[in-house]
């Protein structure tokens, strides 16, 4: 039997993040920690999360394992727990048990063959910006009712996020001094579906800054970190929207 103990707040956030793209996901466990990769059914968005074993207060693994988990059920299970609680996860054969204080909630693991681990596409860009998540959130919220896509543009001096429809427009402009870091030799721009970005940023609650990398009409990569000592790290990938 394997036993893992971690903070409820962290596990909740992980479940919320996965749930922005899937309802079922495969957790890969080895001696270094847990890694999860999931792609949404329309293959527009993908997420990968690495949780090193240092994040856990207890990490005793019987063997390397792959667990297919119903993410929505996991979320409901966690509803009874307070963010400040710790949760112990016990894995035995095809069952998984969650101990939250005096409550023990057991569920069957899903059939491992029915849930696949996606490959991560080869997406690289030397154009990136590191910014406060809070600032980006404001731009997304302002754009939400305007259009279903948002156009990101980056130059050496500023970052912009703009949405427009026939009658409305919304634009977030962040000059260089409001950005944490910029790497951009020549200006780049690309559009993305806004709904996915909003779902993702809403789920990523305890992260303060993240890195956006993209180039012209190319997938967006959002690198993020959160949890105790920012130990949990991950990336969110989003396919571009082609301009009309």
């Amino acid at each position: 039997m394997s036993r893992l103990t971690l903070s409820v707040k962290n596990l909740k956030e992980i479940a919320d993040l996965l749930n922005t793209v899937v309802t079922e996901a495969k957790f890969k466990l080895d001696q270094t920690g847990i890694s999860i990769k999931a792609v949404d059914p329309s293959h527009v968005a993908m997420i990968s999360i690495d949780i090193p074993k240092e994040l856990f207060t207890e990490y005793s693994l019987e063997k390397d394992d792959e667990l297919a988990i119903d993410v929505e059920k996991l979320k409901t299970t966690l509803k009874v727990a307070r963010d400040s609680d710790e949760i112990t996860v016990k894995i035995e054969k095809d069952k998984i048990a969650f101990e939250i204080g005096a409550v023990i909630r057991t569920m069957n693991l899903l059939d491992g063959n029915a849930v696949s681990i996606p490959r991560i596409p080869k997406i690289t860009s030397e154009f990136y910006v590191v910014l406060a998540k809070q600032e980006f959130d404001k731009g997304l919220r302002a754009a939400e009712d305007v259009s279903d896509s948002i156009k990101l543009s980056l130059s050496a001096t500023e970052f912009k996020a703009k949405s427009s429809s026939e009658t409305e427009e919304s634009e977030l402009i962040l000059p260089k001094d409001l950005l944490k870091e910029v790497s951009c030799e020549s200006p780049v721009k690309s559009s993305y579906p806004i709904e996915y970005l909003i779902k993702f940023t809403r789920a990523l609650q305890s992260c303060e800054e993240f890195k956006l990398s993209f180039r012209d009409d190319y997938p967006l990569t959002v690198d993020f970190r959160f949890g105790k000592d920012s130990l949990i790290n991950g990336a969110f990938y989003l396919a571009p929207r082609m301009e009309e």
Partner: protein
Amino acid sequence: MPLKTTFKIPPELCLKCRTAKLLCGLSYCPISISNHLDRKANLIPRNGISGSSPPSVFVGRYGYPKIQLYPSTPPETGDTSIYEAPSQWLTMDMEKFLEMRLSLLRGGKFVSISDASSPNYFLQDVQVMTLSSAPVEVEMKLDRTLTGSRYLLSEYSPPMGPSAPLLEMKVGTTKSDPVAEKVYYDTDLKAAEGMYTLYKSNIDVSRISRILSVGSLGNGKNRKLVPTRWSITAADKTVSDFNVKMLKHMPSVDDFHVFVRSVSGNLFMGIIGPGSWRYEWGEAWFPGSTWNSFGDRTAVMIDHEDYYGRKTYPDIGGCYYSSRLAVSEYMNNLGRSGVALLWREIYPNFNIPLGVWYVRENMREMFRSKPLHFDTLDASIAYLSRITKVPIERWRSESWVSSSLKNPTLDRFY
């Protein structure tokens, strides 16, 4: 009992045509139908109807939640099941069909929608009659003659005949249907699950919607009568929701399947292509067709849903769900998912509302035909451009699925 047309037909035209050529441009001959119906009407005794109900019932919506419930029957006995079998109507001549459906005579009685939670004898009789899998003898005593009452033509429900207030009804023996009865007597089963249980046992959605309309489904305390117009779409939507949920787990089709079905006054088209489930239903109404009687240009309208479905009711109406049911059946039979672009052109001579069954059955029939296969959406659309009367660019610019296919997925970046 005159059958009204929305415009005056010059008598010279009728004299030249005498039902033979439909010179008036209608898809049926009003004179011939009126004659048939009048003959039938003369056979009906004053104040009473008796016959074999297929079984058939209509639930009105005016006055909701106090509405009228109309059990109905044609004035003939024997196997009348074809009166309520949409799958057999497609091959029928339009006049024959109208003549048949318009002779379904109705006796109406006021009921409250919530009566279904504890039905009185009358409502119970109607519910049990509706469950029957074979025609049921019915005798209805009416308050007045049917003469002068209106026919029922609607874009949702199939046409039905005239009605009069119902005083008393006697119902003969019914043929029991074990699945339908089980669902009826199971007062813990949710209405949606009840509908899908019936569908899985090969009961057609038109019958399911009738069973739903008389308040025979759902949690006992919450059972309600549902106006026919709403129950038809509720059944199409609920059953296709289950089907769509299943097909989302299936692999996508590999290439584009293109279907075309041309029937009197209508062109139906379908493109099924690779990708995750996305669906759209489009209609182009030519000036002079039912819902574009006064316009001078073709009206094109498309409603769609992405993988996660819709949150609002489609403006385009009930046909959205009846054709969604047809395509979900096609994909499930194939064991494949995909994107679906379904379009329909309605020409000027199609000017009578028949009900959404017309779309459902035509789409089902279309999907039974052999598709043409193409490698790309462009090639599929190019093929259709030779058949459509609406300029293909008009279709393409309105098509949501077509523009969504232009957006790349992450798969392109491996």
